[in-house]
């Protein structure tokens, strides 16, 4: 069972793995990880054959919450990995493990300003290159964007 394999693999990395309430949230497993552990988590997920479904960040005013979703083509098992990150802190990249994460990380950098260490090409993705604001931050003043 993929769910058991994943639970074992993630527990061996000293992470707390909880069962998700699928009917309410859509997850089967919920994991909390620290930023430095993320490359190992990604390697474990790739080893189990999962693909990176989505990656985004949520601005919680005093800190960020980075959310990775993983799923599998073979068996239904969605894993959500929550990584708390302080403001003004950086995050290691996982684009050397999942090349698809390259654009997701660029988008998070563009919209939130979170820096990813060792990213091959960390520049803005959606906004113009010379933009000087990060629009999805909760304290983004609208007047900064309008002409």
């Amino acid at each position, binding site marked *: 069972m993929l769910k058991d394999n994943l639970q074992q693999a993630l527990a061996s990395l000293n992470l707390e793995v909880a069962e998700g309430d699928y009917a309410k949230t859509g997850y089967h497993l919920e994991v909390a990880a620290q930023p430095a552990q993320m490359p190992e988590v990604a390697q474990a997920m790739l080893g189990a054959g999962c693909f990176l479904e989505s990656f985004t960040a949520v601005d919680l005013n005093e800190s960020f919450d980075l959310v990775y979703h993983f799923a599998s083509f073979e068996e239904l098992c969605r894993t959500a990995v929550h990584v708390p990150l302080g403001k003004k802190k950086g995050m290691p990249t996982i684009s050397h493990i999942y090349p698809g994460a390259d654009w997701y990380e660029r988008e998070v950098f563009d919209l939130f300003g979170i820096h990813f260490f060792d990213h091959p090409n960390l520049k803005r993705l959606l906004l*113009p290159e010379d933009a000087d604001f990060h629009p999805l931050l909760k304290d983004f003043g*609208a007047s900064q964007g309008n002409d």
Partner: protein
Amino acid sequence: METKTGEPLIHLGVLEEALNLARANSLWPMTFGLACCAIEMMAAGAARFDLDRFGAGVFRPSPRQCDLMIVAGTISKKMAPAVVRLYEQMPAPKWVIAMGNCAISGGPFYYPTQYAIVPGADLIIPVDVYVPGCPPRPETLIEGILLLEEKITGRGRLRKFRDVKR
């Protein structure tokens, strides 16, 4: 009526009317679909709502070969310089139709704290005809093109040799 080039230096009389008639009946639009309205523009050019019967069916991708720019879709701030450059690359006489609510005034994407779009094509290029809708039906776009033809010739389409009462 003013085109971008302003009043002509030399008035050619009846020849000018013939030229205007020719220009109005053979508008060559540029394929400039930015977002959802592009699909309705394509549908207007397809078999059911045929734009070709009005002479406007030859969509050219290169701005140097067309005289009508149909701005179909939202203009984002990143895209705005490209729109202006394309407009400047078109040879005169040229006209612009702002198709869809986004091109007229930002559409559903304009709200007071927005950062991403230019709320209206007429902020960056001169617009001749506004075609409202989200997206406008192909018939609406055809109405817009017929209105542009009336603007170019100064006469109504069906009442051929009589002036339009406005």
